[in-house]
C-alpha cells in the first residue's frame, strides 16, 4: 500500500517539479515571481481538451498546438506588459501577475464555463500491474516526459550557448548586459519557455485531476511550497522539492486525513521557513 502511495506521490510530485522548474527559470532569469504561471498551466490543459475533445484532432497534434499557442501567449504577455515593467518596483510586477490571474480565470470561465472538464489520458486507459503496484499509462507518460525534460534541460543549461547565457543572466543581469547579451530578448525567451513548461505540466496532469478554472491557483501554491522546500531559486531544488511535495501530500492525505491535503503545502512552507528557510538544497546567494 505504501508503495502505491509513494508511486502516485512521485508521479504527482514530478508535475510539481516540472511546473516548479518553470517558475524558477523565470525567477532566476528575470527576478520576477510569476503568480499567473498557474493560469498558463490551466489554459494548456483546457486547450488540449478543446483540440482533442471538441475538434477531435489527433491527440499529439492537439498537444503540439496547445503548447505553441501558450508559448505565443507567454511571449505576448511579456511584450505587452512585462517589457514595460522591467524597471518597475517588484510589488508592481507581482501585482501585474496577480491581475493576469484574474484575467485569465475570467476568460476561461467565459470560454469554457465553470464546470469541470475531463481530459482523456494520452495513451488511453491502460494500466499494468507490476510487483503489486498498479501503474497507469498516464503515470508512465508523466514520469517519462518529466525525466526527458529534466535531462534535456540540464543539457541545454550546462552545455549549450543558450544555457550559458541563462547562467550568466541568473548570476548577474547587469554583467550579462555588459557582455553583450540582449536582456529584453532574453526575458522574452524566459517567458516563452516558462509558460510552455507550465502548459506541458497542465497537459500531462490534466487526465489525473479535475480540469477547472481554479486549477491555476491550486498548483501555484503547491509549487511554491515545493520550491521553498527544495530551496527557493534553485533548479535542482525545484526538482527535489516537487517530488517530495507530491509524496508528502499523498502521505498526509492517506495517513492523517484527506481534508489536510489542501493545506499540506502551507504547513510544509511554514515549517521549512521557520526551521531552514534556505530549503533542503538551498544555498542561495541572497
Amino acid at each position, binding site marked *: 500500500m505504501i508503495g502505491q502511495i509513494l508511486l502516485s506521490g512521485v508521479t504527482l510530485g514530478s508535475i510539481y517539479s516540472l511546473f516548479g522548474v518553470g517558475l524558477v527559470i523565470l525567477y532566476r532569469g528575470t527576478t520576477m515571481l510569476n503568480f499567473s504561471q498557474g493560469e498558463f498551466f490551466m489554459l494548456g490543459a483546457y486547450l488540449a481538451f478543446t483540440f482533442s475533445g471538441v475538434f477531435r484532432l489527433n491527440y499529439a497534434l492537439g498537444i503540439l498546438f496547445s503548447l505553441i499557442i501558450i508559448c505565443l501567449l507567454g511571449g505576448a504577455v511579456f511584450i505587452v506588459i512585462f517589457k514595460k515593467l522591467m524597471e518597475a518596483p517588484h*510589488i508592481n510586477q507581482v501585482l501585474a501577475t496577480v*491581475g493576469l490571474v484574474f484575467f485569465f480565470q*475570467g476568460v476561461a470561465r467565459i470560454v469554457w464555463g465553470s464546470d469541470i472538464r475531463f481530459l482523456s489520458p494520452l495513451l488511453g486507459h491502460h494500466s499494468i500491474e507490476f510487483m503489486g503496484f498498479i501503474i497507469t499509462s498516464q503515470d508512465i507518460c508523466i514520469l517519462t516526459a518529466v525525466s526527458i525534460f529534466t535531462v534535456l534541460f540540464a543539457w541545454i543549461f550546462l552545455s549549450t550557448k543558450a544555457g550559458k547565457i541563462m547562467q550568466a543572466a541568473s548570476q548577474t543581469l547587469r554583467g550579462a548586459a555588459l557582455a553583450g547579451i540582449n536582456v529584453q530578448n532574453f526575458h522574452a525567451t524566459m517567458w516563452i519557455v516558462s509558460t510552455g513548461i507550465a502548459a506541458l505540466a497542465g497537459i500531462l496532469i490534466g487526465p489525473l485531476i479535475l480540469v477547472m478554472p481554479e486549477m491555476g491557483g491550486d498548483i501555484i501554491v503547491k509549487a511554491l511550497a515545493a520550491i521553498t522546500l527544495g530551496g527557493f531559486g534553485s533548479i535542482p531544488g525545484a526538482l527535489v522539492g516537487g517530488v517530495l511535495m507530491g509524496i508528502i501530500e499523498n502521505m498526509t492525505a492517506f495517513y492523517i486525513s484527506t481534508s489536510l491535503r489542501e493545506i499540506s503545502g502551507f504547513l510544509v512552507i511554514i515549517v521549512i521557513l521557520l526551521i531552514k528557510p534556505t530549503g533542503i538544497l538551498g544555498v542561495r546567494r541572497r
Partner: protein
Amino acid sequence: MKRLKKYKSLLCFVLLLFIPLLTTNYTQYLINIAFIYILVTLGFNLVLGYVGRFSFANASFFGIGAYSVGLLMRKLGIPFWFSLPLGGLITGAVGLLLGFPALRLHRYYLAVVTLAFTFLMKFIYIHGGGFTYGPSGFDIPVPTIGVLRFSSDKNVYYIVLVVFFLVLTLIANIIKSNIGRSFRSVNEAENAAEALSMNTRKTVLLAFALSGFVVGIAGGLLSIVLRRITPDSFGMLEIVTHFIMVVFGGLGSITGSIIGGSVISLLPELLRGSQEYQELLYGLLIVIFVLFAPKGIYGFILKYVPGVQREKLYQDVE
C-alpha cells in the same frame, strides 16, 4: 487659516454624521463597507507602504479580527464595545508574532509564509467544528449599548463612524510622530537607521502589531456590519483586494489609503452589471493600473494635479 486646518477633521466628522439622512439602507451598507476597508487599507499600508515588508497576512488579520469579535460576542456574550477593542488586541498580538519572521526572512520568503498563514487560518475557520462554526459561518448578535440597539445599517453606521475616526486619528498621530519617521527610515535606509542606533527590530514589530490591531478592529466592524461571518470572506480574493487597495491608493500615504480603500471596495458594485465579465475586468483593471499609474492614484494626483502638496509627514517646526 491654520486654525481652520486643525478643525478640518472635526468638521468632516460632523458633516458625515448627517449621511444617514440622505441614503437608502443599501447605500448606507455600502458606505459602512467603504469605511471598514479604508481602515483595512490604512492598516495594510503600515506594513506594506511605510515599513515596506511584503506581507500577505493582512487578510488573516481581517479574519482573525472578525472571528474573535464575533465569537466573543456570540459565545461569551461580551458586549461589542468591549469585544471590539479586545478583538483588536488579539489580532495585534498575532500581528506581533508575525513580525518576528518578517525580521528574519527575505522578501519572497516572507510573502510565501504569510500567504501560507492566511490560508491556514481560513482552513481553521472551515474545519474548526463547534469552535468556529464551520464553512457556513455564523450570525453575530446585534450590538447594544445599554438600551440602544444598533440593528439597522444606519444605526451601525454611527458605530463605524466613531471607531473609524478614533482609529484614523490614532494612525495619523503615530505616522506624524517619531515612530512614523522610524517606519519610513526602516523602509528606505535600514542600514543608516541602524547606524543611528534606531531600534529597527522594535520598529518592524511595532508596525506589524499596529497593523494587526487596526485591521483586526476593521474585521470586528465587519462582523457587526455584515451581521454574519463566513470563512469565504478571507481567502485569496480578499488577499488580493487588500493589495490592490493599497497600491491603487498609493503606498505610504493616508490620503491614498482613503481613496484606495473606498474606491476599490465599491468596485464590485460598479461592475455589477456584467457579472460574467467581472473577474476579467478586475484583472484587466489591475494590469492597466500597474502599467499607467504605478504610484497609485495619490501619486497620479501629485504628479498631474497642480497645486497639491505632498502629505506632511513630520510635525511643523514651530
